[in-house]
């Protein structure tokens, strides 16, 4: 599985968090680019994201990432503090996105265990140039060198809910130096404080503004880093903690026993608590600092509500839950308990039943992920391409909340990207051409996702020039891709030619298209998922490409039916109705095939027991049930013995050894552990 990195947990976390930060950043930029200006909040957000990346990259010793982020941070610091009036927002967005791309690439390298060796010097100099340009144009004295905050008062993070620190706990004072040349002392100190919080309650450290002020690194270097904390742990445990922290050179750990000293310390802290609101009121600029740091903390703790889990583990969990349900049925319906009056047992069993079914539901829903992230990524592609090709395009996303299985998400990003690129490159006309045709500007690309029964439909629509049949045919002729006479080809068949490998109507190979691989990739990937690609196009009105992807491994609602001793599940969305027919509705044709009249229309019937060669007592139509199933244009009846009821089922693929069987979409486990085969309504109808 591709998501399985064999990384150390720290590194994995770093990659995960940084990727999160980057996508957040990208989203921010794209959202506000439309508004053509950043509000204060956005600038703060970007600043915060860059800061996070910088700190964690520095901690993981990825210096080129951290220096880049650092430069970016400087830039936004300037923008935030000085609020320059003249900003070229487009250039700024480009710059940020470029930096984000660079970091993304590096993260990819790290994930693949390659050397993360990208060269950031060009980017950095670009950023610095931009900053210099801003400074010049906004006529403000050189800033980053003289940060006003270095003079801000000491600040302490104190948990206010603690009444007193004078408790049974041990109070320590520690002073330490970091090894020479380890750089970013302030960040390391922050990390240390952060980790120490797991063991102890840290109530003061000096210098206190380690996160806000980079100059504090110098202070730590020269004077060491001092901290006061209390902990229920012994001296030894604390000592161990420091010994195991990287780059700590000299450590002076003192257990404070002297009551006077404690009093002094407490007083000091109390004073700080009392005075801090006053000092905050002094200047608005200083208020900003605690605010951001608070926000930062709240946000980072908020993020921890999401963890990434290996999909394998989820599969395992789902299998186990299935097993549990079976075991439960075995206990409750145990033959030994038959004919016993067990009121209390029954009550308890009912309770168990309820809980297991809830567990089952939750486990099933865990695997489902909304398409949001995959679809949001397209925003970036549309933006970049529209700029490069000088076209005016907006992207509209509908139904991003549609949930699909995790496995599917991984496989649709690429095809989607190709489709969107294709739509913009080939479909959408130049603004000039659009104006001449009297079409609206900007052009629109719509990605719409929705679930339709067994499938998820993802449609990429554009209102561009549409597919030109003649051009496609000509190209196919030239490349020898035609497999049958042109006159016999339906419109769809002609359109489908664009998915042939090596097909491209573009004479020239551009950055985005022309090599004739893109659309081929789309079909390949979608077919791998067992899906199909459909094209509809109207000249000058646009093209709609529909990806129809089955929900393999997803949950469907199905109707369980019984034929003989076998169970089958019919996807509920393809069922139109079900009824027990009366003799006069049934018609037999000369070959003996049955048909049924429903409201004046005649439909064929498939006898499931004949189709699947199952022994059953019920062979007369009037004794069983006819389920009317529909698939696209075709509607037909399926003759079964009896209905068992509706159930949410997990679609499992049939084992590889058995391969694909016509008429079966997979199988599922019923509550009692029996296997039920899921019917493929489209496949079954092929014989009619």
């Amino acid at each position, binding site marked *: 599985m591709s998501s399985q990195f064999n990384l150390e947990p720290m590194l994995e976390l770093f990659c995960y968090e940084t990727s999160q930060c980057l996508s957040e950043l990208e989203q921010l930029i794209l959202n506000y680019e439309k508004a053509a200006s950043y509000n204060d909040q956005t600038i703060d957000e970007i600043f915060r994201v860059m800061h996070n990346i910088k700190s964690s990259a520095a901690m993981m010793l990825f210096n080129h990432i951290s220096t880049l982020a650092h430069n970016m941070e400087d830039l936004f610091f300037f923008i935030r503090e000085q609020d320059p009036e003249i900003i070229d927002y487009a250039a700024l967005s480009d710059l940020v996105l470029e930096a984000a791309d660079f970091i993304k690439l590096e993260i990819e390298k790290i994930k693949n265990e390659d050397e993360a060796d990208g060269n950031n010097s060009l980017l950095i100099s670009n950023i610095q140039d931009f900053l210099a340009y801003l400074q010049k144009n906004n006529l403000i004295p050189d800033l980053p060198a003289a940060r006003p905050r270095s003079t801000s008062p000491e600040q302490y993070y104190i948990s206010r809910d603690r009444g007193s620190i004078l408790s049974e706990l041990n109070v320590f004072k520690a002073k330490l130096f970091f090894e020479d040349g380890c750089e970013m002392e302030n960040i390391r100190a922050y990390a240390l404080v952060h980790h120490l919080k797991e063991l102890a309650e840290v109530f003061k450290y000096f210098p206190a503004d380690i996160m806000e002020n980079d100059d504090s690194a110098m202070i730590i270097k020269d004077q060491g880093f001092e901290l006061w904390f209390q902990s229920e742990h012994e001296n030894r445990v604390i000592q161990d903690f420091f010994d195991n922290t990287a780059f700590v050179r000299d450590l002076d750990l003192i257990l404070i026993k002297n009551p006077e000293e404690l009093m002094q310390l407490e007083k000091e802290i109390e004073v700080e608590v009392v005075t801090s609101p006053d000092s905050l009121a002094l200047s608005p600029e200083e208020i900003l600092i605690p605010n951001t740091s608070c926000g930062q903390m709240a946000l980072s703790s908020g993020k921890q509500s999401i963890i990434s889990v290996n999909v394998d583990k989820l599969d395992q969990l789902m299998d186990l839950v299935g097993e549990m349900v079976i075991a439960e049925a075995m206990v409750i319906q145990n033959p030994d308990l038959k004919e016993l009056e067990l009121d209390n047992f029954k009550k308890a069993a009912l309770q168990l039943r309820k809980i297991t079914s809830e567990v089952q539901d939750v486990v099933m829903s865990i695997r489902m992920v909304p398409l949001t992230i995959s679809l949001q990524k397209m925003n970036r592609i549309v933006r970049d391409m529209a700029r490069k090709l000088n076209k005016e395009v907006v992207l509209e996303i509908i139904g991003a909340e549609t949930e699909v299985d995790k496995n599917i998400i991984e496989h649709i990003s690429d095809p989607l990207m190709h489709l969107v690129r294709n739509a913009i490159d080939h479909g959408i006309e130049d603004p000039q051409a659009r104006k001449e045709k009297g079409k609206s500007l900007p052009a629109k690309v719509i990605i719409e996702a929705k679930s339709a029964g067994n499938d998820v439909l993802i449609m990429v629509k554009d209102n561009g020039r549409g597919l030109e049949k003649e051009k496609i045919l000509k190209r196919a002729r030239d490349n020898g891709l035609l497999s049958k006479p042109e006159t016999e080809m339906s419109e769809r068949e002609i359109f489908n030619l664009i998915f042939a490998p090596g097909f491209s109507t573009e004479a020239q190979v551009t950055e985005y298209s022309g090599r004739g691989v893109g659309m081929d990739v789309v079909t390949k990937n979608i077919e791998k998922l067992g899906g199909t690609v459909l094209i509809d196009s109207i000249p000058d009105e646009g093209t709609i490409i529909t990806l129809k992807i089955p929900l393999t491994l997803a949950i469907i609602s199905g109707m369980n039916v019984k034929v003989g001793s076998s169970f089958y599940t019919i996807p509920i969305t393809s069922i139109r109705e079900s009824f027990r027919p009366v003799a006069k509705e049934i018609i037999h044709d000369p070959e003996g095939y049955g048909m049924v009249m429903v409201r004046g229309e005649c439909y064929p019937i498939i006898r499931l027991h004949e189709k699947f060669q*199952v022994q059953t007592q019920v062979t007369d139509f009037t004794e069983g049930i006819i389920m009317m199933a529909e698939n696209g244009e075709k509607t037909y009846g399926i003759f079964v013995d009896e209905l068992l009821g509706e159930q949410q089922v997990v679609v499992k*693929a*049939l*084992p*590889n050894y058995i391969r694909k*069987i016509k008429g079966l979409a997979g199988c599922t486990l019923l509550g009692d*552990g029996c*296997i039920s085969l899921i019917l493929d309504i489209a496949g079954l109808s092929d014989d009619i």
Partner: protein
Amino acid sequence: MEETLAWLEEEDTQKGKFLTFSLGSEFYGIEIKYVTEIIGIQPITEVPELPDYVKGIINLRGKIIPVMDVRLRFKKPPQDYNDRTCIIIIDVKETDIGLIVDSVSEVLEIPEEEIVSPPEVNKNQNRYIKAIGKVGEDVKLILDCFKLLNDEEIEALEDIQ
């Protein structure tokens, strides 16, 4: 380094060991490295359009596994399943499959020098037998699991589909 050693050791402990089972009067052996587990006979769900020796699929702790009746595979007369009937779950090249056999006997160690190639009687007759192991007076037919699962018949079936 250590891992490799451990792995080699494990390979080593499995080498030369065979799970033996009976079909009628004959005894067969499967290399132990293929065997995942042995379970009693289970309710089997029939699946249409399969060769007769593939009886269907079973649910093994949430995993769907196809089962093959080895009797039918060897064109022996079918026999009703009883409480001695076992399903041996084997894993051959990532494919899990259950083999229905009359009964499972034991795990035997057969030294390499006691294993001989099957006689070349007829090309088609011995195709599932990889070798013959001699244990005292008895003879165990050692199965070629790979051929058991994949041969021309299955391929032919695929072609039809």
